[in-house]
């Protein structure tokens, strides 16, 4: 029987450092996909994901093995990716004061899209993702490509669950506008 990520992490914490490679293998493809879609730069993606794994290794003792490993490593990846974007876009601030996280929103329900709607959204997303701001790109990637729920996304981005819903709704609307050839920031 395959060991869970958490069991492998526990073994690494206990001294089996070589087993960290198993975790790398399990998350390599997922984090590379996340990096390529989020950073929009396939060349940098590999290096940044490598740095993510190194950072994860350094901080592995802080991981609580009674919780899920996946949001933990995605959180590290998120931080690395945001830092990379900040370096790259030094003249533009990637995330400043985020008014989306200030107030409560009613739109917090994790609504399962219909299969057709989800397929359409995925198709539009593949075509137009690069037109969106990083702030809206990221929840879309995590929700549609990494199949995470609102709470997991909230834990990775450290934002309220209701804000995840709001950003996804806005991002979908932007994608639809983009698909129709309209300016998404009007």
């Amino acid at each position, binding site marked *: 029987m395959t060991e869970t990520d958490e069991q492998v992490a526990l073994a690494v*914490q206990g001294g089996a450092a070589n087993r960290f*490679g198993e975790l790398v293998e399990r998350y390599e493809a997922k984090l590379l996909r996340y990096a390529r879609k989020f950073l929009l730069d396939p060349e940098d993606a590999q290096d940044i994901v490598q740095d993510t794994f190194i950072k994860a290794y350094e901080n592995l003792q802080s991981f609580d093995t009674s919780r899920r490993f996946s949001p933990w490593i995605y959180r590290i990846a998120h931080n690395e990716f945001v830092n990379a974007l900040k370096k790259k876009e030094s003249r533009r601030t990637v995330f400043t004061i985020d008014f989306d996280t200030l107030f409560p929103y009613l739109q917090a329900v994790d609504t399962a899209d219909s299969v057709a709607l989800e397929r359409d959204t995925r198709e539009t997303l593949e075509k137009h993702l690069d037109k969106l701001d990083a702030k809206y790109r990221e929840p879309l990637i995590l929700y549609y490509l990494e199949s995470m729920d609102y709470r997991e996304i909230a834990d990775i981005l450290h934002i309220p669950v209701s804000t995840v819903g709001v950003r996804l709704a806005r991002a979908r609307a932007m994608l639809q506008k983009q698909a129709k050839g309209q300016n998404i920031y009007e």
Partner: protein
Amino acid sequence: MSEDFRDKVMAMIEKKGVAMRPRWHFILLSALAAAGILILVIALLYVISLAFFFLREGGAWYAPSFGGRGWFVLLHSAPLLLLILVAIFALILEILVRKYSFAYRAPLTMSLGGILVVVFLGGFVLAQTSFHRRMEFEAHHGYLPPPMGFWYGSMFRPPHPPDMRRGVIVMEEPGRFVIIGPDGEGTSTVILTPKTRLPYGEDFAPGDMVIVIGDADGTDTIRAFGVRTIEERMEIQ
């Protein structure tokens, strides 16, 4: 590809001599964060209760029972410096707790609002005890070390509104009475008119501690807009 990548990461860890940070490092960081949070909560409770204490001691706390003008007196007497400290401490506390899921999962206004509600309630309760009165007494007699005594100096005290008096009745006549300040400093003659608001009745007697707001004519006479007793009684010095 997968094995290549895995080997590359593992080789890099080895080559760079990357070591796992020990568990105690994270425990220490968590303990420091927890200590920081605890210190800030205590500081907030202290400062807020001190603000309530100053408002009660100055009498402005009781002024809203006279209506709009009373509320104005209360706002005018707000200990601004203490409130600025509260805002700064609350923001730092919010930054410290933001890394915990209970905080980041809630909108900023709600988690910050929650912090403020809790510390204001706690501060209000603390202000009901004799803690600050004892501390103030000790500070005035030089029994407290300077950093603590400093809080009870004039710097943090709210301004005393010119149209408010607080004191003990020392003499009463129909339509007027004389009060003496709580520290025995100065007397004021309070004139009651048919328009004077008396939210707690008009049975005043010598020895009662009262709050008066009204129009002072530049002398020690004040034409009362409102008068009320406060529960606190004080020995006439």
